């Protein structure tokens, strides 16, 4: 990406000759099983996705190869975007529920003392 200088691109796509839109391997830098497995789960839940998997190419390098193959001619970036935003929404919901329950617990603990 122009003008980035030392900063490595976070996300790349492995380009191959004769590449189609629907089978793409993404390379994500500075990521590991934390995002890889949870993202894989969210994308697998998408009925348009034929294949989804990730590998850590070498344990000494912190990058993952994330492959998505879709069916029905859907471009592979779409399930990736949907998976990421779904995961974001899941985290938001978990955060809201967790905060609500913790506050509820703290209030319940204070009540007997009143």
């Amino acid at each position, binding site marked *: 990406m122009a003008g980035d200088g030392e900063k490595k691109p976070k996300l790349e796509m492995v380009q191959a000759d004769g590449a189609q839109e629907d089978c793409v391997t993404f390379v994500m830098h500075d990521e590991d099983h934390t995002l890889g497995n949870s*993202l894989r789960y969210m994308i697998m*839940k998408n009925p348009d996705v034929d294949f989804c998997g990730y590998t850590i190419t070498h344990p000494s390098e912190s990058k993952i190869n994330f492959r998505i193959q879709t069916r029905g001619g859907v471009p592979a970036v779409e399930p990736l*975007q949907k998976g990421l*935003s779904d995961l974001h929404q*899941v985290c938001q*919901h978990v*955060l809201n529920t967790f905060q609500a*329950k913790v506050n509820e617990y703290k209030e319940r603990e204070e009540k007997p003392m009143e």
Partner: protein
Amino acid sequence: MAATGSNVEEIRNLVVLEEFGVKNVHTTDFPGNYPGFQDGWDMKTFQKNFRIDVVHLDENNIEFDMVGIDAAIANAFRRILLAEVPTMAIEKVFIYNNTSIVQDEVLAHRLGLVPIKADPRLFEYKNIAEEFGEQEASEIDTIQLQLKIKCSRNPRASKESSDPRELYLNHIVYSKDINWVPLGNQADVFADSRIGAVHDDIVIAQLRPGQELDVVMHCVKGIGKDHAKFSPVATASYRLLPDITLMEQVEGEKAERLKRCFSRGVIDLEDVRGKKVAKVVNSRLDTCSREVLRHKDLKNLVKLGRVRDHFIFTIESTGSLPADVLMQEAIKVLMAKCQMLLNELSSAGTQ
């Protein structure tokens, strides 16, 4: 094992613990795997089935149940709690005088591992500029601490005593001897919070009369991935809820033996028409030792398993942040990762 009608529910929901192995470990409820099931991602179904129950909460510990989520995401939270929630820890140790028996590098290593009570959310990461080698410590990214202590002979000790506590003053350097030196406007910003070591009684070094330590330390913000001293949790772990089903009624002496195979409180003996009958009271307390499967006559009476989407989280904090705040920060870290990738995708798309 083929997914026939009767055991489909079991394959989808339960991890089965058998005598020689564990079955149905992986998540299989993806779209297309089971005919007749709608397994595509549906936010509403997730929100309906998802719940969190806080079992225990105090300043440094939290135990809560997370039900209705997949292992991939629960594990992501656990990994983030261990390695990617930032904390403040001592990074640079400037040793002006160390005449103790502890070597400089060993002392510096020990100081780095001392948990520091400072809210990492109020600090920035330090920029590592290669060109200068030594960056100025600014008030926004560094906490400066000082340890200056000298051991001396106690003039009031009696002649015959051999107890070091009586003979010497300051002969053990504790973490409470670490003092905070406010930089810039830190004195005003952190006027009411006590910045220093979390615990007062961590032994750092031992001294004898004449030995002294004069050390200045800089704390920076970091994550556990970089060095384990930055990990905010003593540990964070989860286990799945055990599931114990009795296949037939067990009574009398067999029930007594069955009760002893499980952890205390899991199985209770009820009095039914004069006979003692075993009943599963609280499977949550079980440690799943599978002891019952070692007894020939008892192993076919029970079915052991774990509920695949019910996670019992235990988080113990080292003290820099309360345990419930740590979980919230971990969830925010995962959200930030997703957001960053989404931004990359959208900026790559517009190019």
